[in-house]
């Protein structure tokens, strides 16, 4: 019987997974963009970002672009590595015999 791959539970939550996937693909995005793309409410996104930031997966920087206040988010190196590892675990899980 093959080993059941262990998934990172912090990333496995759908909203946080969406945030990680978006940031992995884009590189850097602001709060509003993540809110729209992830279809999240402001409070929901804020709490998920805080969890990801505390885990060291996401770096958050508050800045100005022209007169526009921006909360810029990007994956840290650790965040990128963890996300890649999560994707590999998921691939292994989906490739297990009997998984379809």
């Amino acid at each position: 019987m093959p080993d059941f791959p262990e998934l990172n539970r912090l990333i496995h939550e759908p909203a946080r997974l969406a945030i990680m996937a978006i940031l992995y693909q884009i590189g850097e995005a602001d709060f509003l963009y993540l809110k729209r793309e992830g279809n999240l409410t402001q409070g929901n996104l804020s709490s998920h970002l805080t969890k990801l930031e505390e885990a060291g997966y996401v770096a958050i920087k508050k800045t100005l672009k022209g007169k526009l206040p921006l909360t810029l988010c990007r994956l840290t190196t650790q965040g990128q590595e963890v996300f890649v590892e999560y994707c590999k675990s998921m691939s292994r899980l989906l490739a297990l015999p009997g998984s379809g």
Partner: protein
Amino acid sequence: MDEFAGRRAAAYWFSDGLPELAFGLALAACGGVGLAWVLYFPYPWMRLVLLLASAWLLALYLWDRKILDVLKTRLTYPRTGYAQPPRDGYPEGGEYTLTLLKPAAAPSPQNNVTAFRMGTVYIFFCGSLWVSAFEDRWGIAIAMLVIGFVVYWGHKWSERPYSWWSVLPLALTGIPVSILAVPLRAQKFVPMVAGGLWLCCRGAWTLARYLRTNRPRQITEGMSA
């Protein structure tokens, strides 16, 4: 389907139509000045006007990210948010394949790409040079058909695929030009003018749709955490 890592960013970059509008205006102005110079104003000072129009196009070609970023800061980012602008070109090292479940590696900024300058805009430049080689009245009609096909096929799998019916008017532009017997020396500017106007129309339509769909926010962006 395999995708660039930054396909999402590249598609977002074009969602407001500003890149197409800016490059379309530059191309149309440059080609239009050239056309006017050849057809109506064969005076030496027109060389200077053509030079200035070309310099504007070159500036946009070199610094389009910075120029468009200034425009987007006022128009796009307050409405739908900021995402890191894509680079122009293709990723180095052949890292073309990535799916969510099979990431080859962490995406480098090189993966976050679009091919607008080296794709769409370059096609019209090369088309203009290519038309000069024709010595026939109907050469421009054939050339525009080929350019239209290249624009359609070249973007079929890109972040901004063009539908065949939207490219059709561009591809058929050469026929009236041939019927009107535009002088051969002026025909080399037709791909730039037609391409520029076509991009302007697309950009203006996309921008109007974007502005209608995304109203300005009442509350400034922020994070409470």
